[in-house]
């Protein structure tokens, strides 16, 4: 399968008064054409920074991509000039942000915001771009598009604004869409509508999607593959079923056990004790070790290598590493 984007050993840091935060610490993943990859993790794990780095939206200073490559259709985006980057943003790679209330310009009509990308990037005449804008609004399910083009963002509800944001992101027919918590600010019944819309647009346009979220329910519904992030690293990747049914990393398992399920009666929640580490001085070993019920001595000292569990499923955990398993055997016999 063709890889649309491949991220290799990405490192991003931010300099602050308190020191340098190592927000992303060597992240590797790829997205195939037409699939949805979900990046899952808690706040501060680096999932948004990773997606912003793909778009080269890390403010420099204080932020910096210190190492690694972001290959978009084989070309390294991190090496592009700002001018070249501008011709890619919105055209080849588009982004949807969390808050539909602030993502739109309140002083411009919906129509002009929809057409801006077309005019800017593709030099299309105003009559044709208006036609295209109306088509997009129909695709994302906004009734009376012709009328509503003339209206301003405050005349739309939250759900409708998110539909408009999606329409703007898709109007230049990008190959990759990055959606950063696209439904977090919405009510559940509206979230359900927007998730259906994502499935529909992927079917219609064949766009690849990187979905950033903390909501495992949303992931179970629309992801194809999942990357689980913790403290600036991807600790496990696999297909949706690999992660939900065969997840091996103790963090992945802990995360799944800590969310309540509507369809399961009376099961107790098992929280993960403790909090994520400070990324000013990230630990040398596995960052989850201090919270991990299975941590061994080696976990605190050396970060585990990637272990390939199947063709689609990989994990960074000493418990899955042959060498780690030997250690485990010796410690248990001693006891």
């Amino acid at each position, binding site marked *: 399968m063709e890889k649309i984007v491949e991220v290799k050993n990405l490192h991003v840091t931010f300099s602050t008064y308190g020191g340098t935060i190592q927000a992303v610490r060597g992240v590797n993943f790829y997205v195939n054409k037409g699939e949805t990859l979900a990046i899952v993790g*808690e*706040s501060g794990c680096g999932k948004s920074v990773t997606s912003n780095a793909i778009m080269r939206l890390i403010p420099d200073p204080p932020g910096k991509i210190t190492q690694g490559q972001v290959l978009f259709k084989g070309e390294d985006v991190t090496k592009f000039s700002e001018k070249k980057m501008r011709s890619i943003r919105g055209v080849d790679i588009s982004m949807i942000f969390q808050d539909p209330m602030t993502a739109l310009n309140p002083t411009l009509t919906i129509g002009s915001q929809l057409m801006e990308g077309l005019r800017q990037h593709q030099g299309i005449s105003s009559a044709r771009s208006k036609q295209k804008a109306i088509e997009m609004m129909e695709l994302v399910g906004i009734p009376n598009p012709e009328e509503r083009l003339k209206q301003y963002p405050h005349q739309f*509800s939250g*759900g*409708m604004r998110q539909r408009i944001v999606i329409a703007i992101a898709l109007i230049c027919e990008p190959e990759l869409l990055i959606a950063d918590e696209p439904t977090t600010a919405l*009510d*559940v*019944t*509206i*979230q*359900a*509508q927007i*998730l*259906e819309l994502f499935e529909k647009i992927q079917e219609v346009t064949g766009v690849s999607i990187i979905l950033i979220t*903390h*909501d*495992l*329910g*949303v*992931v*179970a*519904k629309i992801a194809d593959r999942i990357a689980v992030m913790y403290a600036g690293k991807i600790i496990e990747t696999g297909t*949706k*079923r690999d992660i*939900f*049914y065969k997840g091996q990393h103790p963090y992945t398992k*802990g*995360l*799944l056990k*800590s*969310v*309540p*399920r*509507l*369809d399961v*009666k009376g099961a*107790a*929640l*098992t*929280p*993960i*004790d403790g*909090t994520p580490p400070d990324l000013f001085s990230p630990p040398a070993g596995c960052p989850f070790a201090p919270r991990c019920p299975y941590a061994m001595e080696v976990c605190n000292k050396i970060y585990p290598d990637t272990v390939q569990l199947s063709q689609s499923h990989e994990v960074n955990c000493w418990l899955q590493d042959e060498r780690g398993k030997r250690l485990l055997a010796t410690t248990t016999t001693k006891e």
Partner: protein
Amino acid sequence: MSQKVLSVEKLTKHFTLGKGRTLQAVNEVTFDIQKGETFGLVGESGCGKSTIGRTIMGLYEKTAGNVIYEGKNVHELGEKDQFQLRKQMQMIFQDPYASLNPRSTVREVISEPMEVHKLHKNKKEQLDDVYQLLEEVGLNRDHANRYPHEFSGGQRQRIGIARALALRPNFIIADEPISALDVSVQAQVVNLLKELQITKGLTFLFIAHDLSMVKQISDRIGVMYLGNMVELTTSDRLYENPLHPYTKALLSAIPIPDPDVEESRERIIVEGELPSPINPPSGCVFRTRCPFAMEICATRKPKWQEIEDNHYVACHLYSEEQEVNSSPKTIVNIR
């Protein structure tokens, strides 16, 4: 069941907006809370659930109806009695960042209510009490002299809980206490609340939009829509046998973190968006989005009635009068 702690009788709260407009935040809501139970109040943003909590506390004046706490009408008490009542009813707020004064140490935050109510004879006694509360919520005495910014979100919410417990209340209103927290931390806080409920015999009103978490913690649940309570029953029955079309839609909109379940289940997508509470629909407020709306729904407000033991619903599909208007065939299981 055991004794009633709180009865809310036909509680109505309208806000006057000027220009003769009124926002109908809560309309004739009726429910009881029994001693030692957790009553969950769910609904989407703007449904009036927080207004109910605040009106019960006496933070808002009611427009009509009654709130009876242990035989006393909350809104008709004199100032002195109100002051005493506050000792028994406390609140936990949503945002652990905004609800703690950044200039006060944890000790000051927790001891302020004790001082207001002159709970202790001397500072020593008070400090011991603060230490004890900190330990009860899973923090330790070293935390007493720190400031809120030194804590993570979950820890701050624990401080907020300790403050709510400072006066040894019997009844606690928790307004979205976990929605600002990460998933693994949410479970920690929910488990803490459950534990405190058992050890201290607390009664909870748990207000939240996340139905899966509410179901996890509540004994009974009331579902709100646009200022009206549409259904009330035990949390298991609400999931197994929801009656109101809105409850059914809400349940089906919540994604379940399990790919097999998620892909196989049928979903009812509610079309459209929430109408304005300034100008709510006539008759049943849900009729504009309801797939089963009939003629009567526009003309008459459905009665709040007990369909089976401990299962209340306000919907014309279940009232006897409607049989003339439509065939009972429309009552299919749409879950």
